[in-house]
């Protein structure tokens, strides 16, 4: 089928245009000093050409709607179409973000109830929906931790402790918040090194950022002890909710002792990832951080909903977006939660764990090396290709690329950084057993290929629109816009 598509600029001809799409005959008298002299080099194409071009481009992607996509830490589960349909009702799409409350009660009620539901599933006391992705949620969380210490005049607390398994956004966020990062190692069983934690804690400790289950795919069993240590040292606990899918309806971050959490609604609450975004990083806080929540949030008085702002939350860390974060994503999450309902929440963790543990069991049985063979998988787990890399010269990336030829998106590769040659595999609860079985079969087949003909695996993929791309060249001979280089 169509396996490549030229750049849109190749379809462009001077004077061509989809004129039905804009008002005819308008012109503006722009004073010379403000006037644009030369039109931007946007493509000039017909409507059909644009539709055909972008439809064809879309077909070059793997996606949940077309492929099993076990990308660890990313929770690529089914994005219900209903969420999209109902979030895109014309009234919601047409609503101006600053429209008066009197013509916004429907929208506000959805957000309010979403806040309430998120409080319930996380065990938190307050929720702000404004952060626009996980990383911005982290920012909000750490900024609140800092604001808390500052409000108590505890000004020395600028260190954020982060396990080595943490996602890159954790340390990057700490830095953005003006904190310094103290990294602590993980034990070989995947748990945190408590001794290292103890050593790291002190009067400078602002807090710790944890994912639990961690990105190693295992649950931190001594979480209560960790919480106590950190709290006793005067720090607060931040929960990176990227892995909330693993525990939804089973255990709540608030009950584990966390003071603040962000939730990737685009993971656990199944809003689509859109090829890179948008997401939503709603934050939840315990009692201590309530005064600092980012604004706006939605309050309810009687039957009336209204925005809460600096007047209501005077100690707020402020605004993180021009309006109300990724409102449309919030509506999608709301619809999803209403469709799951109470029982559905529990099932999320149950079946994501069932799928992960089943896949792990089958892969172990097939001879693959689990990074933490003695542990339960959470909703994801790690296998390492260290042995294959050493013995056969076929590494984790080679397996990943070859999986594409077999019709599966690759797991997350080389993350977390501490496990060599790792594949972080997250099947999610919405995949059927036969899909998991087929994935195991593919890995077994690739293993056999690697043993017989390593070069074949290393040359993969073969059946995609392009073969393996030269990343080094991409970074060295920068070609970031059409026309930047003399390439066609």
């Amino acid at each position, binding site marked *: 089928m169509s396996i490549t598509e030229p750049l849109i600029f190749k379809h462009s001809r001077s004077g061509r245009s989809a004129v039905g799409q804009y008002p005819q005959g308008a012109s503006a008298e722009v004073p010379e000093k403000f006037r644009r002299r030369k039109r931007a080099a946007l493509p000039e194409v017909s409507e059909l050409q644009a539709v055909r*071009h972008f439809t064809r*481009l879309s077909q070059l992607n793997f996606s949940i709607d077309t492929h099993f996509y076990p990308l660890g830490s990313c929770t690529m589960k089914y994005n219900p179409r209903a969420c999209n349909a109902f979030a895109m009702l014309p009234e919601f799409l047409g609503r101006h973000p600053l429209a008066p409350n009197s013509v916004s009660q429907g929208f506000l009620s959805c957000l309010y109830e979403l806040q309430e539901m998120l409080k319930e599933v996380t065990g938190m006391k307050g929720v702000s929906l404004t952060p*626009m992705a996980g990383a911005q949620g982290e920012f909000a969380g750490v900024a609140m931790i800092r604001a808390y210490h500052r409000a108590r005049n505890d000004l020395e607390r600028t260190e954020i402790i982060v396990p080595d398994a943490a996602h890159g956004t954790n340390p990057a966020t700490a830095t953005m918040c003006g904190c310094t990062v103290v990294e602590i190692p993980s034990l070989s069983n995947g748990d945190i090194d408590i001794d290292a934690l103890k050593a790291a804690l002190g009067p400078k400790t602002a807090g710790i950022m944890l994912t639990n289950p961690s990105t190693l795919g295992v649950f931190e069993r001594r979480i209560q002890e960790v919480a106590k240590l950190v709290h006793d040292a005067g720090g607060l606990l931040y929960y990176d909710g990227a892995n909330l899918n693993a525990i939804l309806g089973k255990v709540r971050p608030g009950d584990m002792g966390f003071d603040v959490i962000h939730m990737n609604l685009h993971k656990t609450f199944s809003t689509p990832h859109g090829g*890179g975004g948008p997401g939503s990083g709603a934050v939840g806080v315990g009692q201590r951080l309530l005064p600092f929540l980012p604004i706006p949030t939605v309050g309810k008085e009687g039957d009336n909903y209204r925005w809460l702002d600096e007047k209501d939350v005077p100690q707020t860390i402020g605004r993180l977006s021009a309006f109300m974060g990724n409102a449309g994503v919030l509506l999608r999450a709301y619809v999803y939660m209403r469709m799951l309902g109470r029982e559905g929440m529990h099932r999320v963790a149950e079946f994501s764990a*069932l799928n992960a543990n089943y896949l792990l069991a089958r892969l172990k049985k097939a001879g693959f090396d689990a990074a933490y063979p003695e542990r339960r998988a959470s909703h994801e787990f790690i296998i390492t290709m260290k042995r294959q890399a050493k013995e056969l010269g076929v590494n984790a990336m080679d397996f990943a690329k070859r999986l594409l030829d077999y019709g599966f998106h690759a797991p997350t590769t080389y993350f977390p950084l501490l496990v060599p040659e790792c594949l972080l595999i997250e099947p999610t609860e919405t995949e059927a057993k036969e899909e998991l079985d087929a994935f195991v079969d593919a890995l077994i087949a690739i293993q056999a290929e690697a043993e017989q003909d390593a070069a074949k695996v290393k040359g993969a993929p073969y059946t995609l629109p392009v073969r393996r791309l030269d990343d080094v060249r991409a970074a060295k001979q920068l070609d970031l*816009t059409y026309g930047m280089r003399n390439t066609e």
Partner: protein
Amino acid sequence: MPFIPHTETEIGEMLAAIGAPSIDALFDEIPAALRIKSLAAIPDALSEMEVGRLMQARANQDGRPLNFLGAGAYEHHIPAAVWAIVTRGEFYSAYTPYQAEASQGTLQLLYEYQTMMSSLTGMEVSNASLYDGASALAEACLMAVRAHRKSKSARIVVPSTLNPTYLSVSRAVVEGQNLSFTVLPYEAGKGTLQFSKLEALKGEDLTAVVIQQPNFFGQMEDVDAITDWAHANNALVIAVVNPLSLALFKPPGEWGSKGVDIVVGDGQPLGVPLSSGGPYFGFMTTRMEHVRQMPGRIIGRTVDLDGKQGFTLTLQAREQHIRRSKATSNICTNQGLLVTAATIHMSLLGAAGLESVAATSQRQAAKLVEKLTRIPGVKVVFDGYRFHEAVLQLPVKVSDVLDALAKRNIVGGLDLSKLYPELGNALLVCATEMRTDADLDAYASALAAVLERKP
């Protein structure tokens, strides 16, 4: 079980393969005391039909009032083709294009987007999006500090005609990093930066000067003079622009004698519906020399093993997943799907189309001002050239007027009295190509009625 494909038989087989007696046993590493008993506050599941009915009822509560609000979010025509393609599963339900070979659709589209945005803003390079316009400005300030090594002050000059929320967000985001903002007032009667106040900063260590064009009042700043002044005084220039307006107006890359250094803004006017405030997307373009200081994802063109062209994420060494605490930003997930919309939108309209939309919007806004100022007591506050927004003075309290208009199913604009108390009863109004002459008349007669306290 909604969205769960497992049959009872399969559950049994899977548990057997795992060697676990029950699904519950899979959670045995979680301390028992911590396990949730119930989620009482979560309502029962609704079927898709039921939730559809619920959402439509909520939507009906809000209705579809006639809108004259802009202030950073603008109602434009979006070709039906745009979202028909954007919501295709292959775009909608894909993750970030980490596996380049399996993501060429998204990657090529982003490369095309980068090309379009660079050209529209007159800059050399673009990233693949930031969250929104406001947070993009915050990132631009941080980037300016990194890029301008010679400046030690981390001091950013902003005009008070900058969208006030953009300033709030920037303050919140850079909070921990010791940047400072110096806010310069606007010229009364003109609504543009008081240049003399800028002149007064001569000789001081300024990291960057921010200019919004058109500014929050819809007025046009003397961007050439400000840009040249800033560069002459060793400050970088950050432009905040409405990308649609660039179809008419000189792009930031051509402001002054050498153009600005960083351009940011909100991409919403390019194919993204108002949708209650988001998701929109922030864009950022810059000069090639600063590319390594730019936050966010960047796509590059390269070749595959066979020498065939392909696209991939590049310069990842700037990003958090590689550089961790030393990254240019913590951003990871961005606003890819909205960029998809914008890229299709720009392709469908082309430069000619955007120009026509911008010109029509300006014309309708001018007509609106004319019609409204015929009402006794309604005046234009600022002289000078404007884009598609204007500040009006009303004879009475603006919030009361807006409430009364809302009852007539009109969203009348933004009350400026809290943001700019010195302007008194000031109202920011907007019209785009979506507002017909009949719409403008409807507003004018509603406003006249409200001001005369008619029912």
